[in-house]
């Protein structure tokens, strides 16, 4: 069997587009999921029982289902449930956002709960409203504790974007697999895909380790 590694260079433009799409998906998902996670965490901590229960159900459901299934589910169920056809990109983004929002909600909740009660009491004693206490005192401190966990979630998310290839979002995995089936250069393309992910992901993993050392709370 002879190998033709030049095939990778020939398709460099498509692969670069795939990488760009992967990065775009990850960034967009994280932006949505950070806001979503904060909202869900605040809902979870609400004294109103139905609000807190709704958030708990959402979080537990999407945390406890495989992401690849969630991608298919979003692909088939969202159009029927909402009555609108979504692009593959929007569907993939929605599935990833649901999943990561659920994880982030837990991360933020843990971060908020980890702030001692005395801190909120001191702020309340100054006459602040609950919302001001949250915004001025609790959240800014929680963010520091949350940052290392968010960084780890980011690395997982970056890899998980590969799963939206199953509904045809043209990110790195999809593009690589497409070139494979067009050219039959299986080993070359699959290895190239792995290497590109490695080149992108390895520095991220190392960066996360550094963030954990720098900001990690050892309590």
């Amino acid at each position: 069997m002879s190998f033709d590694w030049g095939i990778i260079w020939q398709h460099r433009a498509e692969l670069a587009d795939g990488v760009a799409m992967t990065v775009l998906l990850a960034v967009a998902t994280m932006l949505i999921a950070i806001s979503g996670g904060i909202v869900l965490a605040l809902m979870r901590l609400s004294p109103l029982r139905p609000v807190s229960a709704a958030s708990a159900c959402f979080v537990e459901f999407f945390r406890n289902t495989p992401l690849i299934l969630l991608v298919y589910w979003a692909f088939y169920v969202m159009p029927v449930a909402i009555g609108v056809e979504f692009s593959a990109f929007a569907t993939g983004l929605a599935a990833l956002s649901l999943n990561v929002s659920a994880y982030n909600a837990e991360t933020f909740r843990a971060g908020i709960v980890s702030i001692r009660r005395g801190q909120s009491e001191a702020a309340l004693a100054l006459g602040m409203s609950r919302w001001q206490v949250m915004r001025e005192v609790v959240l800014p401190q929680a963010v520091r504790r949350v940052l290392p966990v968010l960084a780890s979630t980011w690395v997982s998310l970056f890899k998980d974007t590969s799963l939206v290839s199953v509904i045809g979002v043209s990110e790195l995995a999809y593009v690589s697999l497409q070139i494979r089936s067009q050219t039959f250069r299986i080993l070359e393309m699959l290895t190239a895909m792995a290497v590109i992910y490695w080149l992108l992901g390895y520095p991220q993993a190392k960066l996360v380790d550094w963030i954990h050392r720098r900001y990690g709370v050892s309590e």
Partner: protein
Amino acid sequence: MNEAVVLDYRDVRKNFGSFVALNGVSIRVHKGEVVCLIGPSGSGKSTLLRCTNGLEKLDGGEISLDGVVLPRSETGMRDVRRRMGMVFQSFELFPHRTVIANVMMGPVTVLRLSRDEARQRAEVLLEKVGLSEKAESHPASLSGGQQQRVAIARALAMQPEVMLFDEPTSALDPETVGEVLNVMKRLADEGMTMVVVTHEMSFARRVANRVVLFERGAIVEEGPPAQIFDAPTVARTRDFLGHLGWHG
């Protein structure tokens, strides 16, 4: 004392489950008065302070500030809290803000002062507690005594009518207790109305106008320090002070 009544506790009751923390406590605190609450741990003195600014809800009785009964609602309580400064045993400075930002936080977020005004106010107060040079430091780099002085300045920045101190020196190293007590003494001399939960008997004796001894959620004896420390009328008071090694 003929001054107006600032805080009026009438038959205050508070339970935690089946534990009776306050079992019908009545005290009047007059303007400019320093009232020290003493007694064994768990006797209800800290709970009384926490009830005063609404961190705990009452189960019975009422508390009035300047003749107005404290509201039960969270929003109503917010307006009342602005008029009371509270100092905690564990300081509770906000670690993510500098010292001066801690002092400015109340005026800026609650009183809606401009940052310049708040800063001026904070600078004066830090000067007063002797920590001007630490204004831009973070709380973590301060000693316990310094942190507590900042916490006092933070409470004073709201220009409260009354200051509540919840065991302000209990978490401090012995060598820094004095600096905090000195700041409190000066505050008392300026005529601030103060309610102080404390184990510092010499401070109570020197500074208080009135000392109230608590046990099991009720008042055992109250009176001027000379009475409590030198001529207690209740046997329990003698026992308590005797256990602390206080003999007149």
